[in-house]
């Protein structure tokens, strides 16, 4: 198209839109001119003026239709129609307020739930991490080691041409003193490129200087926002202060902003300076970040890493046999665990919206039926079917956008609720907010929802033959095509709603049942009135190979036992209430490798008594054991089952493995106790466990005391800290909490998931119930005449009741059957979140089926009652 012509066309379109009235007046004038000429022509042929006008009118063949055809030529007609239909849609509430309120509320719930969930998905899964060009940052992982050892890192750094700066991130553990109470934690050692690569500026202070990255100069730390708040009271003067890490002095040079948490939840960062020995041999846990060079693809990086791995495999097969390197976007490492639960919740919200749409489609069908006279008049006046469909669809979309706006308001609140309700361990929770993408999403699903629930009703309502309707004068007609199609569609919609609600309810049911199993686990000891804590050995003493914490432990336990309000005291290292467990395999006999892994814990006398773990055979540890030549052990039931076939193990002997750093020693079993489940282990696993006597076996570390209180356990907290401080200077008391709190912290995640899923499940159920009620109620109204006839012919009210409820029951049965299939297919995605039950748990499914059947029958009951009370005479006369 030539430029001039294009300009001309554009000018015409704009003129048609902006000067609409003027353009229309010109059209009138143009046709009027023609008309008058025509009249003159006929008059000249000798007609009377009156006859000439009539003849001219006929010759013009319907002036209005011609005008409409001319308007259609303007190319902007659709815009004008849209504005007209939309304004018609906006005026709709005045005509049917009830329909509008129900529709907007239903949509607001559906769209609000989805928008809020999307704000979480967007903030956590979709938005790039808040680092400089974070899309280019990758983790490098060496398999089979599952991390990136230092020598491998150095090899890759030296050889790679596709990777830019690389940073080594090492895990460290230590104790910090000099700021608030002593704390010990895992923290992070980072190499020089770490902060510049991520590009996040500190809130206060600065990054490490290159000079601070050299051996002997690494005396600086950078604090996380959380540690700064908790241990430094959010004091901006923290920069420059000195803290002690494992007895060495460090200066705080920076505080990072709250959003910066890499690796997740690390409290502080320290320069990583490698010794020559570490460069060659450090295989402890460390990971590697790398910045892909601009213009290089991940495939190129992977190809290069494959080459490097192959070279190392050949040049040093002893060290690198079978080693492979892989990259993963760093976002993957941060959010991978949160993906499935979030997507499940988003899916659940999506189901709620689908149910809402099904309800609205059903409502619109009924309204389309009621509006037949209006539509028929429009059709008679020249509206084409396409034009009617557009009118009805525009109304639906306007309605959906109104619902969407209400939904967005709900979503702002919903996002705030989600920040509280999503499990506390969810990454990037503090970044969750309703941003512009969320608003676009809300707008998008609103329009989509409008089209979804509006299309079928619009097609059906516009199919009606206008002459039929006008002839009827708007009265009911029982056999019209549209009515039958509409009813068929409404039934399909209700079946779909029940099926969707079934899947939602099944997911909720599984989550709730799993939660109830978690809450009712028998741990094998008494949960209440139990105070637990961990006493990490101070760093200075940990470095001394001859240090023995046992005298401190003994003194602390004795003083605890003497406190008023304390019923009993024991201690353990390893298992319950203790530190990270040790795994031992095949310690007794090489032939039993297939038996369960063994935990080796040490415990003090009265430990089992304090926990109230049942004793099955033999005796407790005794103070006198210390003098015995052979080590004594107590085993649990699971161990006895696995290694002694359930026979009484008391008196049996076994050998400790050599690497336990004592000379291989014989151990004599003196007792058997019940199994205890580990409250912090995934799925509360119970292990086959061997307990040695803490005071007899040289453990090194301090014991973790467990205190059975008479009153509220936390009331003892202050006294307990004071006792420890009096016995052992600078010894931190960590994890001071009750067993009940520990357990409820452990169930917080499944609890929050069940709650969110339950919210969506309940919403879906209510909406489905409204849908069934709407259909049954409408169908009774439509069939009033038929019901009256039946009753006049002798049907009892009971028969009518059965007929209506029977219809509801058939729909429910169909919906439940479809839902069962859907749930069967979908609940398996929940498998990893379920405790102690299968994702196709038959009991849950049966319960949900009964629930939905009940809901469906309850929803058809009220319309059925109404049907029963139909007065046959009135119903027939009404015709």
């Amino acid at each position, binding site marked *: 198209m030539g430029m001039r012509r294009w300009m001309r066309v554009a000018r015409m379109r704009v003129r048609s839109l902006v000067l609409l009235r003027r353009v229309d007046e*010109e059209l009138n004038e143009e046709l009027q001119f023609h008309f008058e000429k025509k009249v003159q022509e006929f008059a000249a042929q000798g007609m009377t003026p009156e006859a000439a006008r009539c003849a001219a009118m006929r010759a*013009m063949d319907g002036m209005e239709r*011609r005008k409409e055809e*001319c308007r259609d030529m*303007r190319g902007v007609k659709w815009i004008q129609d849209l504005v007209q239909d939309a304004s018609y849609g906006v005026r709709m509430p005045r005509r049917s307020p009830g329909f509008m309120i129900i529709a907007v509320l239903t949509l607001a719930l559906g769209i609000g739930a989805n928008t809020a969930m999307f704000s979480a998905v967007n903030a956590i899964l979709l938005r790039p991490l808040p680092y400089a060009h974070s899309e280019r940052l990758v983790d490098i992982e060496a398999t089979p080691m599952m991390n990136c050892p230092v020598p491998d890192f150095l090899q890759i750094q030296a050889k790679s041409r596709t990777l830019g700066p690389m940073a080594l991130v090492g895990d460290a553990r230590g104790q910090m003193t000099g700021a608030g109470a002593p704390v010990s934690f895992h923290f992070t050692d980072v190499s020089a490129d770490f902060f510049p690569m991520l590009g996040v500026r500190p809130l206060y202070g600065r990054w490490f200087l290159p000079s601070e990255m050299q051996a002997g100069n690494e005396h600086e730390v950078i604090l996380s926002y959380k540690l700064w708040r908790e241990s430094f009271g959010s004091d901006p003067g923290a920069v420059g202060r000195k803290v002690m890490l494992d007895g060495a002095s460090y200066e705080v040079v920076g505080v990072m902003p709250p959003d910066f948490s890499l690796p997740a939840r690390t409290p502080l960062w320290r320069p990583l300076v490698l010794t020559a020995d570490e460069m060659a041999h450090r295989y402890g846990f460390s990971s590697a970040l790398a910045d892909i060079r601009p213009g290089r693809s991940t495939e190129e990086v992977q190809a290069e890493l494959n080459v490097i791995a192959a070279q190392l495999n050949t040049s040093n097969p002893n060290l690198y046999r079978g080693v492979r390197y892989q990259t993963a976007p760093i976002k993957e490492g941060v959010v991978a665990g949160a993906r499935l639960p979030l997507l499940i919740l988003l899916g659940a919200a999506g189901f709620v919206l689908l149910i809402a749409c099904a309800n609205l489609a059903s409502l619109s069908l009924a309204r389309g039926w009621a509006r037949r006279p209006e539509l028929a008049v429009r059709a008679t006046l020249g509206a084409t079917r396409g034009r009617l469909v557009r009118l009805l669809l525009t109304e639906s979309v306007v309605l959906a956008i109104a619902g969407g706006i209400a939904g967005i308001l709900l979503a702002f609140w919903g996002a705030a609720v989600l920040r509280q309700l999503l499990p506390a361990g969810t990454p990037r929770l503090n970044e969750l907010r309703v941003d512009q993408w969320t608003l676009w999403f809300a707008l998008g699903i609103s329009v989509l929802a409008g089209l979804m629930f509006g299309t079928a009703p619009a097609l059906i309502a516009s199919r009606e033959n206008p002459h039929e309707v006008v002839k009827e004068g708007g009265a009911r007609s029982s056999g019209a095509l549209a009515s039958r199609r509409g009813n068929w569609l409404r039934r399909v919609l209700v079946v779909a709603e029940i099926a969707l609600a079934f899947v939602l309810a099944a997911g909720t049911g599984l989550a709730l049942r799993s939660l109830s199993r978690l809450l009712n686990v028998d741990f094998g000891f008494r949960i209440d009135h139990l105070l637990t804590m961990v006493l990490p050995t101070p760093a200075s003493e940990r470095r001394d190979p001859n240090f023995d914490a046992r005298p401190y432990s003994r003194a602390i336990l004795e003083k605890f036992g003497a406190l008023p309000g304390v019923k009993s005291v024991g201690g353990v290292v390893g298992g319950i209430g203790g530190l990270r467990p040790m795994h031992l395999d095949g310690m007794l006999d090489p032939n039993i490798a297939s038996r369960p892994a063994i935990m080796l814990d040490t415990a003090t006398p009265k430990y089992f008594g304090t926990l109230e773990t049942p004793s099955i055979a033999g005796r407790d540890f005794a103070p006198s054991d210390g003098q015995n030549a052979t080590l004594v052990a107590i085993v649990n039931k699971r161990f006895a089952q696995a290694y002694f076939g359930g026979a009484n193990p008391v008196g049996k002997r076994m050998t400790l493995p050599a690497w336990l750093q004592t000379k291989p020693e014989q151990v004599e079993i003196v007792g058997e106790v019940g199994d205890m489940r580990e409250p912090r282990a995934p799925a509360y696993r119970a292990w086959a466990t061997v307990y040695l006597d803490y005071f007899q076996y040289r453990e090194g570390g301090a014991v973790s005391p467990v205190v059975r209180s008479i009153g509220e356990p936390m009331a003892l907290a202050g006294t307990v800290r004071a006792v420890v401080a009096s016995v052992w200077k600078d010894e931190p008391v960590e994890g001071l909490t009750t067993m009940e709190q520990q357990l409820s912290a452990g169930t917080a995640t499944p609890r929050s998931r069940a709650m969110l899923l339950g919210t969506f499940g309940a919403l879906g159920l209510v909406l489905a119930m409204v849908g069934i009620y709407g259909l049954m109620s409408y169908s009774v109204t439509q069939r009033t005449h038929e019901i009256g006839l039946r009753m006049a012919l002798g049907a009892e009210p009971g028969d009518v009741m059965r007929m209506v409820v029977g219809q509801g029951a058939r729909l429910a049965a169909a919906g439940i059957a479809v839902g069962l299939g859907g749930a069967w297919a979908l609940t398996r995605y929940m498998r990893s979140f379920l405790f102690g039950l299968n994702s196709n748990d038959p009991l849950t499914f049966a319960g949900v089926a009964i629930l939905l059947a009940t809901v469906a029958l309850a929803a058809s009951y009220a319309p059925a009652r109404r049907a029963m009370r139909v007065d046959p005479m009135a119903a027939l006369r009404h015709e």
Partner: protein
Amino acid sequence: MSKPMDFVQGTLDLVLLKILALEPMNGWAIMQRLKQVSGEVLQVSDGSLYPALHKLEQQGWIHAEWKLSENNRRAKFYSLTRAGRKQLEQEKANWERLSAAIAQVVRLKEA
């Protein structure tokens, strides 16, 4: 008088463009001219002319302006634009090709 012939699909545009190429005209005059030059063979019903004219105007082939008609009444006069003249040449060429082809077919001798 035999029945006036319907327009072959798309040829109304060609005819309108050709008539307007002669001189700017209003709708009524176009109709009169059409009857006159075609010996009353080609006729359009009184109303159907206007949607066609509006379409051509929207496509930028013709331009409309209000002028006084012979008896001093305001009327909408259409004239060909430059793009319209090009379009006319093209449609004329198309038509000539098509009519020549059809004439060839029709004149085939039957065996």
